[in-house]
């Protein structure tokens, strides 16, 4: 398969996924003028969801309807694999719409799918609003975060395969087209992150991981800011950052040399009681480093989203349009900062990963 056919296959897959769009449903539930709950709105935007919700027309009125991209829900229940589209919930996440599939009844309670126990048809809650007559099946759904991850895979593949093909063909290696955009960034990661943090001789082995992490986090941070995607907040999802931090931890642990382990278990150059005292601290330090990587990215991105949404919520909390004169400039200001933060957080994650690899591979100096 040549690169061109591969590219067109990728493109068609992407368009196929997007062409489910324009799926409008009418919400028959009678939603009265309920009080605006900023907390619920913000949490709903920040958390993962089944289906990509784009816009709601006539919210709270009789003819309310939503436009969204439905995504597949894949569950593993006692009756085996159960799949249906998220549109069957009709944008309900309060547990009112019951979907019957494959001998089970499913409800969506705050973007978590519960399976009702046998014989039950309405979900009931305890004092803390946890469902009592339902349990959670194993959930492998293509949620909006998973969908956005695939979109960013596709875009990154397109960018870098095009650039790679250019370098393969060109004789003088002068960057052209998309390659002239990618080359400075790759050189930046190599010269500013890889070489100084890991060292001239060993950095090459770690460059593929550093480049992948840098561009993957960056593109996902940017996607989180695009309103059309409804803040598919992938890099603000702790499972995503956990996975990246875990990979960094694994690479650090497996590339650790004798000197690295000696510094952890028997710190050279300090008295023996101090060595014993330092050992547990260093062992805990092994784990706190990736954990802080995980929390830092998660908290930075989530906090940015929460601040912007909270500023917009002010308009609805004070119930006056004039609040917009305050909210919009502030949200714009924070938005510009967030654009810088997207790049800075990708950079920080990569730098710290490189720093840990550098610490693991450092030779003893006498």
């Amino acid at each position, binding site marked *: 398969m040549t690169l061109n056919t591969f590219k067109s296959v990728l493109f068609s897959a992407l368009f196929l996924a997007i062409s489910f769009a324009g799926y409008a449903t009418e919400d028959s539930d009678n939603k009265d003028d309920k009080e605006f709950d900023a907390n619920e709105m913000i949490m709903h935007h920040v958390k993962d969801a089944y289906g990509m919700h784009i816009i709601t027309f006539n919210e709270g009125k009789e003819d309310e309807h939503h436009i969204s991209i439905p995504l597949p829900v894949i569950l593993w229940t006692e009756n085996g694999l159960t799949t249906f589209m998220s549109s069957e919930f009709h944008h309900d996440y309060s547990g009112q719409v019951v979907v019957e599939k494959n001998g089970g009844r499913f409800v969506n309670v705050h973007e978590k799918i519960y399976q009702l126990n046998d014989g039950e048809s309405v979900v009931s809650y305890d004092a803390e609003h946890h469902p009592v007559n339902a349990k959670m099946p194993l959930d492998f759904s293509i949620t909006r975060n998973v969908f956005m991850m695939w979109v960013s895979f596709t875009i990154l593949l397109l960018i870098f395969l095009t650039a790679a093909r250019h370098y393969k063909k060109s004789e003088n290696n002068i960057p052209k087209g998309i390659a002239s955009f990618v080359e400075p960034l790759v050189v930046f990661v190599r010269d500013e992150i890889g070489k100084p943090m890991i060292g001239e001789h060993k950095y090459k082995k770690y460059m593929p991981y550093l480049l992948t992490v840098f561009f993957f986090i960056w593109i996902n941070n940017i996607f989180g800011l695009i309103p059309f995607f409804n803040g598919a907040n992938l890099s603000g999802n702790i499972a995503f950052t956990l996975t990246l931090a875990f990979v960094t931890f694994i690479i650090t642990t497996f590339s650790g040399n004798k000197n690295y382990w000696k510094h952890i278990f028997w710190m050279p150059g300090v008295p023996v009681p101090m060595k014993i005292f330092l050992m547990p601290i260093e062992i805990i330090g092994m784990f706190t480093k990736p954990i802080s990587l995980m*929390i830092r990215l998660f908290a930075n991105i989530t*906090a940015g989203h929460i601040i912007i949404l909270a500023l917009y919520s002010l308009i609805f909390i004070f119930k006056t349009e004039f609040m917009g004169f305050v909210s919009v400039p502030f949200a714009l200001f924070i938005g510009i900062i967030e654009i810088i933060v997207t790049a*800075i957080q990708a950079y920080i994650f990569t730098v710290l990963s490189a720093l840990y690899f550098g610490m693991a591979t450092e030779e003893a100096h006498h």
Partner: protein
Amino acid sequence: MTITGIAALGAGLAAIGAGIGIGKIGGSAMEAMARQPEMHGKIQSSALILAAFVEAVALFGVVAAIILK
């Protein structure tokens, strides 16, 4: 005082600490850049990394406050 209030207070205290920290980093970085303009790039990048370290502390406070909400 409820647990929410205490969590919010803790987040505020963490923010004060992070503010002092970032202020010190920024001030020293500015001073260093003024003394050695040729080291501008290196000082800026290390100042950014340190600022991210300090900022993380404030964000840990925010996360704790959200979890305890």
